């Protein structure tokens, strides 16, 4: 069998990039011990068979309509999120470390939000500059004094993690408003099981199927009424939203109704949904709408997506909102550098997971540094997601850099900068053979009465050669993430 022919071992000729950590192969192109067995199975499968199975996977996604929508695209409608059939694996040791780190981090963020909308001790004691905090667009003063049940602000967190060349896993950013992607985790796993039943059986991968059940449990646990009678709904902006598939999917898997703002109304500070049998009380809302559009009485008056009076009902404690209103101050990228401080302040612990060095452009010195080195840094908007508002210095044109610099000067509080991290890579199908492509990782953490980390998560991959951008809206794809279970169990 020729090395570079259309058939042959799947990983034939695979070469990791110099100075970059590869998730599957070490620097000598040998498979890492935890996954050597899996690599052998894939190799034996061969390129031709792999191609055939990729076709089956693609067909399954199309048939199932497992899509997302892209705003910038001319067609503007549904696209299949490209799925690469080579999984990304995480060793049991790495997993233990991640799990502990995530749990700690989410605990600290919850306590921060409680404090931020309560006594603001962390500000009073000067751990976070008050001016920086108050200028956050995510801080909603209207919510001060409103206490969600059990102090849970972050029922669902999606925390992005990357790996440095040294092998160290670090947190890149937090997503605690409406983190998305878990439906792809579940859909990807379903497809993987269908396409690779044998490999799967051998590889001992932690299952992910209990996510919807765990999420539902957390929602019910934080309900204002008796658990057995709790009515929980998923609130979506509608079928034209880019993440609509996920809203629908989770509603179905949790056995909840999927509602739009127009289906709900508030009467005497209680939320009701319009049903064919009359109004039915709603106790918990898993909301996938931005805070700004949630309630035209309090926030954007022009919003057609929200429910007038919802904030009143929420403030009275008559409805639980997951995630809580006002979480944006917690995933503001200019506040992110203070999360280790939150861990120390609220938990009296040292952070288990490190972060990426960050320059806060609101600070004069940091801003000057950023503007001087804008062509080598990654500059980001503090409150956008999906990769929008981000410029990769080394990959940008002079014009793009000039535009970004102008934006930073016009609104310094709105930007941060970070050094470009050489993201780890994972073997990915690149048309004719496998090649290293950059990946990140987003685990999902659910908090109700306690915190649970999904043993899996979304690995996003930059499909283009040389690209560092993994977002779905900007040409990224995804891989199934395998948390390998300890053999000695």
């Amino acid at each position, binding site marked *: 069998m020729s090395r570079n022919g259309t058939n042959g071992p799947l990983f034939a000729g695979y070469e990791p990039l110099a100075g970059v950590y590869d998730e599957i192969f070490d620097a000598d192109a040998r498979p890492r011990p935890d996954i050597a067995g899996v690599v052998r199975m894939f190799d034996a499968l061969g390129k031709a068979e792999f191609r055939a199975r990729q076709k089956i996977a693609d067909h399954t996604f199309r048939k199932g*309509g497992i899509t997302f929508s892209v705003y910038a695209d001319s067609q503007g409608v549904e696209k299949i999120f490209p799925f690469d059939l080579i999984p990304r694996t995480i060793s049991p040791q790495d997993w233990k470390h991640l799990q502990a780190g995530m749990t700690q981090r989410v605990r600290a963020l919850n306590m921060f939000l409680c404090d931020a909308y309560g006594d603001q001790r962390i500000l009073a004691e000067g751990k976070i500059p008050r001016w920086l905090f108050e200028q956050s667009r995510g801080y909603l003063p209207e919510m001060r004094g409103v206490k969600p*049940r059990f102090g849970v602000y972050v029922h669902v967190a999606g925390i992005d993690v990357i790996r440095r060349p040294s092998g160290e896993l670090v947190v890149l950013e937090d997503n605690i408003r409406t983190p998305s992607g878990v439906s792809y985790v579940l859909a990807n796993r379903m497809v993987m099981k269908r396409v690779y039943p044998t490999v799967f059986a051998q590889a001992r991968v932690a299952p992910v199927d209990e996510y919807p059940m765990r999420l539902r449990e957390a929602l019910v646990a934080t309900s204002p009424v008796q658990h057995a009678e709790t009515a929980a709904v998923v609130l979506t902006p509608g079928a034209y939203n880019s993440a609509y598939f996920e809203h629908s999917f989770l509603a179905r898997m949790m056995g909840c109704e999927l509602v739009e703002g127009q289906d709900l109304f508030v009467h005497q500070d209680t939320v009701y949904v319009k049903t064919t049998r009359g109004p039915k009380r709603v106790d918990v809302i898993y909301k996938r709408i931005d805070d700004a559009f949630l309630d035209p009485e309090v926030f954007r008056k022009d919003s057609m997506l929200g429910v007038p009076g919802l904030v009143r009902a929420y403030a009275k404690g008559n409805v639980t909102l997951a995630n809580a209103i006002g979480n944006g101050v917690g995933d503001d990228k200019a506040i992110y550098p203070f999360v280790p401080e939150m861990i120390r302040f609220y938990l009296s612990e040292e952070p288990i997971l490190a972060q990426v060095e960050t320059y806060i452009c609101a600070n004069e010195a940091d801003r000057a540094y950023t503007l001087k080195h804008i062509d080598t840094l990654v500059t980001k908007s503090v409150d956008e997601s999906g990769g929008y508002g981000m410029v990769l210095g080394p990959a940008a044109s002079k014009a793009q850099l000039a535009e970004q610099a102008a934006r930073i000067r016009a609104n310094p509080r709105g930007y941060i900068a970070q050094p470009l991290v050489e993201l780890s890579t994972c073997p990915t199908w690149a048309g004719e053979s496998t090649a290293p492509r950059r990946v990140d990782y987003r685990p999902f953490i659910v908090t109700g009465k306690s915190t649970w980390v999904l043993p899996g998560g979304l690995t996003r991959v930059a499909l283009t050669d040389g690209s560092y951008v993994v977002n779905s809206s900007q040409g990224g794809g995804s891989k199934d993430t395998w948390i390998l279970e300890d053999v000695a169990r």
Partner: protein
Amino acid sequence: MISRVAGNCFWMHRYVERVENTARMLQVNGAFVLDVQLPDAQRWRPFLIVAGEQPRFDELFGAGKAHDGEVVQEYLTWDERCPSSILTALGWARENARTIRETISLEMWESLNEAWLWMKEGSARKLYQRDRHTFYNRVKDICLLFNGICHNTILNAEPFDFMRLGMLLERAGQTGRILDVKYHTFGREQGADETAGEVAQWLALLRSCAAFDPFLKLNRPLSGPEVAGFLILEDAFPRSVMHCLARAAEFLERIDAGSYPAAGGRRALPGLSALIAYVKPLTIGAILERGLHAELTHIIDATAGVCHAIHADYFDPVFDGAVRPAQSQVQSQGEAPA
């Protein structure tokens, strides 16, 4: 169930029913015009009328083009400007399904999604060009599969009731419209002689409503009045107007019984019951005496009225200040907020 979602269930099935009826009509007529010499204006124009699309077609293509079967079929099958074309209606069925994915079964969604992809992506178009008859068979199969899956995988609760209600009311209207237009076109009077060409027309009409075999099984003489009577009044035939209205009323009664006491009452069920009370005692003789066109118009309009009333009663209800929730309030005040 959520009011808006009830509407989606209702409309999803109406659209699928519309697709099936259109495909059947066009397929039957395709064979029919090869057998029978009809004036140009009568060969394809009636189908534009049945779909309510004659004015728009004339505007887009000019009145003369209605003589051209290819142009009419193209318009009623593929044109996205035509709200009732097969492609458009299928697209709307699928869009409704997409909006209520969590309500319908996975198989139902996949069947519609696959059908829509097939239509959009070229293989359907190739089949349409190469083998028109098989193409329409496939379209009908899509609808039959969808309804079959629905009947066998959906919990028989409210969503199911609204789905069947939509399908049945659409079907009643379709049968009524096809009969009205075709009967008018053939222009028969009671008791006139049947020629071979006219027999072919009645057979084609029966086939358009999937009534060919059922009608023959009942051993009735093949005449205009018999066919019309069968299509309107025969309760044993699943596509007759009477059958569809009666079954629709059963579903609407179930829905109504489970519903809440509405201020001012609801209008859909009374409206439908009144229509059934009107149609049930009719005979074809009486209908023809009063004028088939007038009677069918009345029935079709009343059916449309019922659909509007269903919308007001269930899909877009107004809840005034007197809110009486469907479940009892059991607020647990015991747990103090953290």
